[in-house]
């Protein structure tokens, strides 16, 4: 007597009986797969985007110092940089010049940033993919190409024509889509910022453990400044994406409960034919635990197929079609949305969570109905 052979026999019989009732089981598997698909899509998306953000922010400055006036960001004098440079542990301080430029023609906001490489090339700019769509409208599909010129309205109403020297690679679209890199002199022409002021300062710190102490020292030196740590940004992104994912999951809980009720109903509502079959099995020598074993394998087969199909569908959905279904909610609103492909990234942890949120409730919901069907009296077929 072999336990493995016994399982094999029971699984054989279970598969054939599932197939004999494929109509009923198919509808359950479809709904099951759909629920898993939804949940998996959300989780894959938020996980991948968190990972993406982390990778991109890897090269972000460890500390950014902004100056606040009346609660709003204001320009920071270069003298601050000199003093901060002297703080122990600070390796370098560089002033950054950047701001938002509103393009009245197509209602888009660009991020304009002064770039050191363009210092000797006034009049040239580098633009991101989203900016190339500047002239694209419903009727006119011209996109900006290299060597085209874009007019920028300066602070005093004049127009500054700047030539597109190059377009930033699509791979960096997540952060550069709306970016325009200009030379420092052009930047100051457009925005009229004094030469001894900058938008903010970026710091490089040698020892990661000292970030908070240095930040504290900066605030002590200049109480009107606000140092922002990269780790804080990462944490905020994580929290926001987690929160958004979680909110969607909670919203979907309605669908989830409907599915559980369906599963329970299918498990309880045995057709007369099924009841008869179990009765026969018990009459010819199958024991309650044998029937329970068969029901267990049934649940496992249904769950496994739904799980695999749901995850595969979610994977294709998120990573191949760029989450066509609910990207807007998760990403936020913007006119210039970058068309980026998320790097496929799935971790065993997510699979485990999906398992907990779907297969386990399904299994628990079917325990009592399985038991009830398995405890049919063996002599029930004789009494009919």
């Amino acid at each position, binding site marked *: 007597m072999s336990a493995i052979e016994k399982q094999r026999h029971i699984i054989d019989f279970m598969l054939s009986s599932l197939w004999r009732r494929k109509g009923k089981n198919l509808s359950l598997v479809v709904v099951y797969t759909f629920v898993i698909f939804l949940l998996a899509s*959300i*989780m894959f998306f938020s996980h991948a985007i968190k990972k993406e953000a982390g990778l991109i922010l890897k090269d972000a400055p460890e500390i950014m110092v902004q100056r606040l006036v009346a609660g709003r960001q204001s320009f920071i004098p270069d003298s601050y940089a000199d003093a901060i440079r002297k703080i122990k542990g600070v390796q370098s301080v560089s002033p950054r010049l950047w701001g938002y430029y509103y393009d009245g023609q197509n209602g888009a906001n660009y991020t304009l940033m002064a770039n050191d490489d363009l210092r000797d090339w006034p009049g040239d700019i580098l633009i991101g993919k989203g900016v190339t769509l500047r002239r694209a409208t419903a009727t006119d599909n011209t996109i900006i190409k290299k060597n085209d010129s874009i007019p920028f309205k300066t602070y005093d109403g004049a127009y500054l024509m700047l030539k597109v020297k190059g377009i930033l690679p699509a791979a960096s679209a997540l952060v550069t889509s709306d970016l325009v890199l200009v030379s420092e002199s052009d930047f100051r022409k457009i925005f009229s910022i004094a030469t001894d002021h900058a938008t903010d300062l970026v710091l490089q710190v040698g020892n990661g453990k000292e970030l*908070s102490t240095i930040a504290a020292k900066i605030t002590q030196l200049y109480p009107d400044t606000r140092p922002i740590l990269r*780790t804080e940004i*990462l*944490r905020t992104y*994580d*929290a926001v994406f*987690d*929160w958004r*994912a*979680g*909110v969607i*999951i*909670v919203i979907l809980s309605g669908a989830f409960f409907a599915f559980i009720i369906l599963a329970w109903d299918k498990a309880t509502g045995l057709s007369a034919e099924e009841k008869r079959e179990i009765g026969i099995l018990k009459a010819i020598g199958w024991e*309650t*635990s044998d029937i*329970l074993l068969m029901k267990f394998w049934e649940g496992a087969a249904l769950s496994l197929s739904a799980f695999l199909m749901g995850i595969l569908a979610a994977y294709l959905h998120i990573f191949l079609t760029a989450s066509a279904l609910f990207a807007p909610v998760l990403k936020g609103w913007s006119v210039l949305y970058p068309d980026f492909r998320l790097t496929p990234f799935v971790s065993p*942890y*997510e699979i*485990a*969570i999906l*398992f*907990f*949120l779907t297969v*386990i*409730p399904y*299994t*628990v919901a079917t*325990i*009592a109905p*399985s*038991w009830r069907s*398995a*405890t049919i009296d063996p002599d029930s077929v004789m009494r009919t």
Partner: protein
Amino acid sequence: MMFHPGILALLLGSALTTAMLCYCAFEGARIIRSWDIRSGSRLQLALERRTYLISMAMSYALGIELLSLFLFIYTADSLSPLFVGAMCAAGSLNVNDFGYPALVLKIVDFLLAGVWLIVNYTDNKASDYPLIKVKYGFLILITPFLVAETLVQSAYLLGLKPDIITSCCGTIFTTDANTVMSGLIGFPRALSEAALYISVGATLLLGTVFYLKGKGGYLFSISAMVSFPISILALITFISLYFYELPTHHCPFCILHPEYGYVGYPLYISLLAGAVSGMGAGAVMPFHKIKSLAGVLPRIQKRLALVSILSFAAFMLISGCGILFSHLSLAAY
């Protein structure tokens, strides 16, 4: 914070397990009150049918407990970036007072549920359910532990707020801080090693004697039970150092990470398996005088002893390989 998918999964899992268990305890009480194997009455037949349901529910509960133990650690790990100072699960669990107690309760509950399933299995092998009242009494005793685990775990998970400053395993698991942990790590290494060899050695030896001759069951079981915490202590105080190749990295959770080859899983699973089977063998010892168990009990205990021996041996083997092939030499420390 509350909406992290991992947290939702854990809360759902523990809610389901607690609900199932409370139902089982309730039915168990009914069975204790009205069970009479010799009767053929409708009530008795219904009760017999019900024991199948309870067995089934408990088996699933144990499975969920085991998975959720690892999911709990994994979730704490993945939440660590959200807490200042935390770099792995060790830090996340320290965020509020409920983290470590929740972990301890989860381990205890897994062991208790495992032992219950062993008693249940034994009972089912005898032809007159001799242990029926014992096992349901035991179940009723376990229930408060599981309810406590759900409550403590929920208190921990729901009380998590980002921006709370906590410490990473480097500072928790260090000899400098003034905590229980540091007391444990400050344990002289030689003593910890000795304790490990003595306890696991005793378990292996007593287990083999029990397997071959059937004597010394209680001693073996106690030895297995004691070896469990001692092995974990050994892991924290010196074994993990070899896997991390750092003389100061004492964290018990980082060995579950992919960069160490997930070696933590086989280590902890073998310890859990060894502890449960050893404790189970002892738990059924008091019943070897019962006639209907006379035939099946020795065989079950033998199999449990074998599982326990092999599990602890696996643990020693994996640890040994880790130590041998590590680039670290602790001779100087």
